[in-house]
Every structure is written in C-alpha cells, then in structure tokens.
C-alpha cells in the first residue's frame, strides 16, 4: 500500500516536496471524511462482534443483574457440539442452502438465457423480475404459507385437480415436506435476482464471438459451453457467493412458516431463540460465533476455488 504517485486532484508536474505535502494533506482530509462512517461501522458491527465473541466464553444471562457473569472458557462450545438441536439446525441449514442455491442457479440460468435471446416484451419481463426481489421476505413467505394451506390452499386444490396429488397435503405441518416447502418459497423469491445478475453478465459478451463461432460451424450447444459459460464465470461466482451466504443465515421464511418449532430450526433461529427467547446470551453468542465461522468457511472455500479456477 505505498502512496501512489498520482494524486487525483494535484496538477501533474510539480516539485517533489510540494507533492508529498499535498499528499499528506489529502490523506488527512480523506481520513477525516471517512471517520463518521468508520465510527458508525465500528459501533454497530465491530464492537458488537467483539462483544459477542467475548460473551461466548461466559455464562452471560440476559437478566445479568441477578446473577454475576463468569468466564467459563470453552464450556459453551463444548455444549454446542453435543447439542443435538444445534446439530440438526446446522444440517437443516446446509441442506436448505444446497437445495436453494442449486435450483436458483439452474432456473436463473434458464430465465437469463431466455430473456437475453430477445423477444417483444423483454423489457417488461426484466422489470417484472425485480418485483419478487423488492418485496419483503416475510411477505413472500406469508403469500406462500397461504398457498400451502392444507384445506383452502391453491397448491393442494390445483394439485388434486391436475391429479398430481391424490389428496390434500399439510405441506408445512408435515416434517417430510417442510424443508421443501420453505425452499420452494425462497427459490421463487430469489431466482429472479440470480437471473438478473446472470443476465447482466450475458449482455456484456460480445455478439461477434457467437458469429465467428457460427462461421466455424459450432453448434448452439458448443457455443454455450465454449463461449457463454467461460465468459459468464465472474457473474456466476458472484451470484453463487451472494446466494450461499444469504441462504446460510436464513431466518425469515422458516420463522414465518414454522415459528421456533424444534424440527425446523435453522442456525439463525436457534441462536435468536436462545438469546431472545431463553435469555441465555452466553450460549446463544457461542452459536452466533459458530454461524459466523461456518459462513466464513464457505467464503474461504469459494475464494480458494476462484483462485484455482483463475490459474
């Protein structure tokens, strides 16, 4: 991070000493301008993060005035590893992440390629795709919860009429359909966003490449694998990273669908319920840190993968 020679506002040819004074002045001013934002970020993110890590080594309770807080070392983490409820939550969240990211990517790709191919009303289509992204997750979850209703839900009604199912199914109440139901709702809400990211990537691929490939006799299939996919890689990775990190901290859909029902707790619901519901801030903080580490692990995997790909 050596100081760069071109100061954005300094005229180009000046004596050296003068420039470095200007440079210092600029640096000072820049940090001054940054200060408010940095203080705010420190206050709402970095300090609480440090504090949460500290709590995770204590038996901090929400009503801490009554009993003193003790340093208990790794006790919380040991308990967490043996906590079947938390283990189930991790497994459920990872399953949910794999299912939703895979479907969102596949469907998003199909939609992006379709919209990119150009037809009348393509602008309308693209605008429409923003809508599910803009509405609150809570709202989309409620819309789906009503559609899943076991007696008056449209999914049961349509399914029976079309003979896809023989009788009404309690999609949300049944343990074996609960995860799929939540995943479908999430996929509906976020696929358009993935499609938009991929579409933006598709639109910067020069058409000449396809024309040249056609002249050389490449089939559409070959064009897709040899031109589209390699050039789309940055957009694909960004979309995958965003979606994975988002899916791992999923809270809203599951909470709206199931409340804090034990068999459908995600990692985030487990932590929220432990901290706010039970008031066990120390133990809940350990869960928070564990979530943070798991998300960090996924990020590292992606970044490493990206590096390897680039080489």
């Amino acid at each position: 991070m050596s100081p760069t020679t071109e100061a954005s506002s300094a005229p180009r040819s000046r004596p050296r000493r003068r420039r470095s004074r200007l440079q210092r002045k600029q640096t000072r001013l820049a940090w001054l301008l940054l200060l408010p934002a940095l203080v705010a970020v420190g206050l709402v993110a970095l300090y609480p993060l440090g504090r949460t890590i500290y709590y995770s080594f204590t038996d901090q309770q929400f009503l801490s005035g009554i009993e003193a807080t003790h340093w208990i070392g790794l006790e919380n983490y040991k308990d967490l590893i043996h906590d079947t409820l938390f283990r189930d939550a991790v497994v459920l969240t990872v399953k949910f992440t794999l299912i939703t990211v895979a479907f969102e990517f596949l469907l998003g790709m199909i939609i992006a390629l379709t919209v990119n191919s150009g037809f009348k009303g393509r602008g309308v289509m693209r605008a429409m795709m923003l809508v599910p992204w803009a509405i609150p997750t809570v709202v989309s979850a409620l819309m789906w919860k009503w559609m899943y209703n076991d007696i008056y839900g449209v999914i049961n009604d349509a399914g029976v009429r079309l003979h896809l199912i023989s009788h009404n199914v309690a999609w949300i109440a049944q343990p074996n359909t609960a995860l799929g139901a939540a995943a479908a709702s999430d996929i509906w809400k976020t696929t358009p966003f993935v499609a938009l990211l991929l579409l933006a990537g598709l639109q910067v691929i020069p058409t000449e490449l396809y024309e040249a490939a056609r002249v050389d006799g490449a089939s559409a299939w070959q064009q897709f694998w040899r031109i589209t996919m390699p050039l789309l890689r940055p957009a694909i990775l960004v979309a995958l990273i965003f979606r994975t990190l988002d899916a791992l901290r999923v809270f809203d859909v599951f909470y709206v669908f199931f409340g804090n029902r034990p068999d459908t707790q995600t990692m985030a619901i487990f932590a929220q319920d432990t901290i706010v519901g039970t008031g066990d801030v120390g133990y809940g903080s350990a869960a928070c840190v564990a979530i943070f580490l798991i998300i960090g692990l996924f990020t590292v995997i992606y970044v490493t993968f990206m590096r390897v790909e680039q080489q």
Partner: protein
Amino acid sequence: MTAAAEATTEARSVAKVRVHKPLRKRLARLPFYLLIAAIFVYTIFPFYWAIRSSLTPDGDLFATPLQYFPNSPTLVHYREVLSSGDFQRALLNSTIVAGSVTLISLVLGTVASYALGRFRFRGRAFAMYLMLSMTIFPQIAILGALYTMINKFGLFNTLGALIFSDLILTLPFTVWVLTSFMAALPKDLEEAAYVDGASPFQVFYKVLLPLIAPGLVTTGLLAFITAWNEYLYALSFTQDPEHHTVTVAITSFTSGKGLTFEQPWGQIMAATVVVTVPLIVLTLILQRRILAGLTAGAVKG
C-alpha cells in the same frame, strides 16, 4: 438450456432476414414462447393469488372448491386492515425507521465515498476491504451483543433500537455503491474547479454532489427497501404492537372475530398487498437504475 441457447442464436439470425418468415420457422419458435409464458406465470402467480385472496369475501375464501377468480369481489379486507390502529402504527413505524436509516446511511455514505472515490491515500485499500467485508456481514452474528447493548442504552422496545441496528445492513453497502459512482466521474471536473480556486468542500458540494444525485436516489431506494424488509432485529428488539414495524405486524395478525381457528387470511393478504405496492411502484419507476446498481459488481467481476 439447449432450447434457450438455440433460441439465442436463432433470434439473432432471424433478426437479419426478417423479410419473409415462413410458418415453419414461426412454429419452431413455439416452445420458446411457451417457456416465456411459463416463466411469466411462475413469477406472477403468487401475486395474483394474494390479490385474488384479498378481494374474496371470507365466505368464499374459506370454502372448497376454490374460486380461481373472485365472483363477488369486496374491499372489506382492505377496510379492516387500513382501519386497524396497530397496522397504521406499523406503517408509520416502518416509514420512520426505514426513512431514518436511509438518511443516515446516505449522509455518512456520501461523505465517505468522496474520500474513497476521489482521493488516493494510505489505507484506502484497507478501508475499501473493510466496507466490502461488512456488506456480507451476517446480521445474526452480532445478535448476542446487540441485544444486551440495546438494553444497556435503554433502547429496547423503541424505534431507535431498529434505526441503530439496521445501519449494519445499509451503511457499508451504501458506502460501497456510492464509491463506485464517485470513482466513475471524470477527473477533469475537479481539476477545473481546483484551478479556479475551489476548496475540497466546494468541489464536493458544488461539483460532485449534483452529479451523483441519480446514484443517491438508487442507493437510497436500495437502503430503504432493505430497512423496510428487515425482520430479525424488529422481532427481537421490539415487544408491543406500538413499536412493531410492518414485517412484525403482518406476521402477528390474529382473527378479531374468534369464530374461526383459521388465521384471517383475507386481511393478511390485503396487508401484504398494501405493504408491497409502494415498493413495487418505486422499483418499476426506477428499474433501470436499480438494475445498474445491483449488477455493477457482477459484471466487473
């Protein structure tokens, strides 16, 4: 995927020889249009169903077989929802919270983006990385400490708690997006102003700020939507209906009549429409700008 890829290439060749399109060729495009129709229905149907349910009177709503189109549409659910004191209060609360969060993020973000986008200085890369890593910061990771901090500050069960904590969701990303807008402006602008003897403050205020105004609108809208949609903190840090935001209020609707054990789905769907419409309108008006803002990072890689 093949169909779509084929369609891609075909669309391009068709565009060139548009003079006579034989019927066979048009028929060949049929699967493609069916695919578009399927995507359209998939995207729009849940909205249609919410609107249909919000207009259907309870008698028809909770009856089988279902009516796919309301035979006797009614606005009674909307009247119930909009006259509910709790819901009015929630709409107001959400507006206050999302508005304040947006305003604070924009003010702090613009100033910070001036530094990051227009100055070269020691530590700039560090500050950029810090902000970027904060944009993917999982909000659940700090719930433990935020919960106790908010209590210590006496903010529990107040809108202040939400304004404070929602900043983590909006501020870093506001800084990041605005910086890209700032950095994209041509250099000569400032240089001309400096030659004329303007101070950095004047350059910021008179030259750069007007130019990134469109960026401020886009970023502001994104921040507003984020704060408006927030649920985890609103659920954890507020308790009584007087301080609920719409996301919490809408999930705690209960039937006032006590006659049926079903939730009042007609009202809930009316409420979802009410909450969603302003967002949809804003999004559609500003769609081009939002698209640019959302996808800038992805294209550049």
